[in-house]
């Protein structure tokens, strides 16, 4: 575990001194990591920012990497990169819930997540100048079980190994990270367990799920969901680099939306399907490589997932937008597929009310009763 005096020492450091000489951000071929790197590059307190990825950033992400040097290298070469750069901070963002490209199979995602993390951590262990390691994790680390408490704190241990590949990756990654923290107690390790990320610009499996007009749900289940806004994710990652916040933190918007409530807010139509049918559909989607929909989503839609964020708010001094606010922002950007807009429902309500009033006004006995 991390001695508590370290955080206090970092706070006493003069503000003018650069808080980081050279920051390495992994996974910058993806939008979120790219924008996190660019924001760090724009901060005068941060020296050099280098984006590390096995793939070159695609055309839609490359323009985001303003002021960021991109190094395209396989994870096993990370040790050389860290040594060459004399990196003192590593932000590990190459942990993703879906294959980066449609032709990538599930195994490649696992390869990237788990093996990539192992190789990066091995490199970090041999980097003598490294002071800080920030890892993107997920609330999927809590697993999925019917015996789970309603609200997970950072101390809650998973009761059952989840079915989803991503959730298992997360458990593996956090396991390796605990090993790393034991071997390099001098490195400040921050693990951020993010709730599903949502926002006007976010493009994830979940945002695509809510963007379709008819949304499949699990029959007889109405899971509690939490989201975190993309902008808050960026803010918190930035603060993790420039501040000193060792430990594991849940990152989610306060409050809860149930799945049915979220679908209604989005003006979509829920289509309940028995769980067996969805399991088969998930397997089929994987087989046909339709991307995204899998046991990770299914587990979430059966069990739901709510976390306690008191530790984050106290330590980071940042209160993320609430789950409802984050979701409403996402809806505003995806109004296109709305089947049942709130304005139309309100109009129908007014029409019904007016109609009933007219009918009652036309009937004299109704007026007598009212009088």
């Amino acid at each position, binding site marked *: 575990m991390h001695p508590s005096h370290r955080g206090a020492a970092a706070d006493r450091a003069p503000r003018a001194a650069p808080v980081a000489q050279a920051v390495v951000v992994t996974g910058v071929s993806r939008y979120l990591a790219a924008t996190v790197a660019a924001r760090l590059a724009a901060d005068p307190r941060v020296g050099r920012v280098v984006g590390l990825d096995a793939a070159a950033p695609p055309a839609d992400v490359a323009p985001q990497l303003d002021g960021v040097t991109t190094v395209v290298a396989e994870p096993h070469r990370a040790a050389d990169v860290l040594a060459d750069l004399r990196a003192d901070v590593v932000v590990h963002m190459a942990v993703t819930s879906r294959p980066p490209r449609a032709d990538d199979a599930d195994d490649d995602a696992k390869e990237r997540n788990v093996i990539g993390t192992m190789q990066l951590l091995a490199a970090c262990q041999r980097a003598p100048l490294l002071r800080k390691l920030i890892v993107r994790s997920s609330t999927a680390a809590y697993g999925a079980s019917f015996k789970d*408490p309603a609200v997970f704190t950072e101390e809650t241990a998973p009761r059952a190994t989840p079915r989803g590949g991503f959730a298992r990756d997360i458990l593996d990654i956090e396991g390796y990270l605990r090993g790393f923290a034991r071997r390099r107690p001098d490195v400040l390790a921050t693990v951020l367990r993010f709730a599903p990320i949502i926002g006007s610009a976010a493009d994830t499996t979940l945002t695509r799920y809510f963007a379709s007009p008819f949304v499949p749900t699990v029959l007889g289940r109405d899971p509690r969901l939490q989201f975190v806004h993309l902008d808050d994710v960026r803010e918190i990652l930035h603060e993790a680099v420039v501040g000193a916040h060792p430990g594991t933190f849940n990152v989610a918007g306060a409050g809860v939306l*149930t799945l049915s409530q979220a679908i209604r807010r989005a003006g979509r139509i829920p289509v309940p399907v028995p769980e067996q049918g969805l399991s088969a559909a998930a397997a089929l989607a994987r087989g046909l490589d339709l991307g995204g929909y899998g046991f990770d989503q299914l587990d979430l839609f059966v069990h739901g997932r709510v976390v306690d964020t008191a530790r984050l708010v106290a330590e980071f001094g940042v209160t993320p937008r609430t789950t409802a606010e984050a979701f409403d922002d996402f809806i505003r950007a995806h109004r296109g597929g709305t089947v049942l807009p709130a304005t139309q429902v309100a109009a129908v309500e007014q029409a019904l009310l007016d109609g009933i009033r007219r009918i009652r006004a036309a009937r004299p006995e109704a007026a007598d009763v009212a009088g």
Partner: protein
Amino acid sequence: MSPVDPPPATDPWDRRVADALAFLRGRLTGQYEVDEFGFDAQLTERVFLPMLRRLYQDWFRTEVTGREFLPEKGGALVVANHAGTVALDGLMLSVAVHDAHDPARHLRLLGADLVFTTPVLSELARKMGTTVACHADAERLLRTGELVGVFPEGFKGVGKGYAERYRLQRFGRGGFVASALRTGQPILPVAIVGAEEAYPMLADIQPLARLLGLPYFPVTPTFPALGPLGLLPLPSKWLIEFCPPISTAGRSEAADDPMVVFDLADEVRETIQSTVDRLLARRPDPFGP
């Protein structure tokens, strides 16, 4: 009469229609609040409780005593006896607690795992404010000043035969006592009479229960003989009594002491048993007025 009142507000029928339509619109567009446990206060107050109140008042003719012991604010662990094959007593206790005070308070029940593994039932239970019976949830609710309801007998209570009616079963490991001690919230024993006769369990078909993965398969005078009609409870007379609270303040270190936990659990059990016996003496005819 204030002159600013809009004319429709003076007509109660019109106001009721407008209110109902606004409620429907709120539900249809997702504009309502659900807490972190999944409790939907609006749905509970406007749909579930009014339905249950019919059963509570007209069918079971429930009488409540000792309301003054139920705290008007702050947390408490409400501990009751459990009976009646299906856990109707939890629902009736929820109505009794809700209607005891103004402003009303909601009882947050702790439910068995089986409730949460069952589709539909799990969804309804969460919306009514029930959560999984575990230390983390119980203590989180107690710390935020909620009234938490627990039936420590569990399936041993609901699944016992009619011959054993009103004899309290073992209280498990007394985990509920540890939660109350750790949070320093009082324990409020409650005795419920009437649930045993609503679904008197004459036999338990264990092989069928094992096949269906249930803790028991009940045979009552009407079920399964009358099919779905057998699910209607018999119109027994219900009495609910809240007993004086047992304070646990400042004893949080005792939560890990098994002797203290067992003794306190026993005290609660004895209190409920003697109150049940007293209520039974007050109600000679289980199906009386």
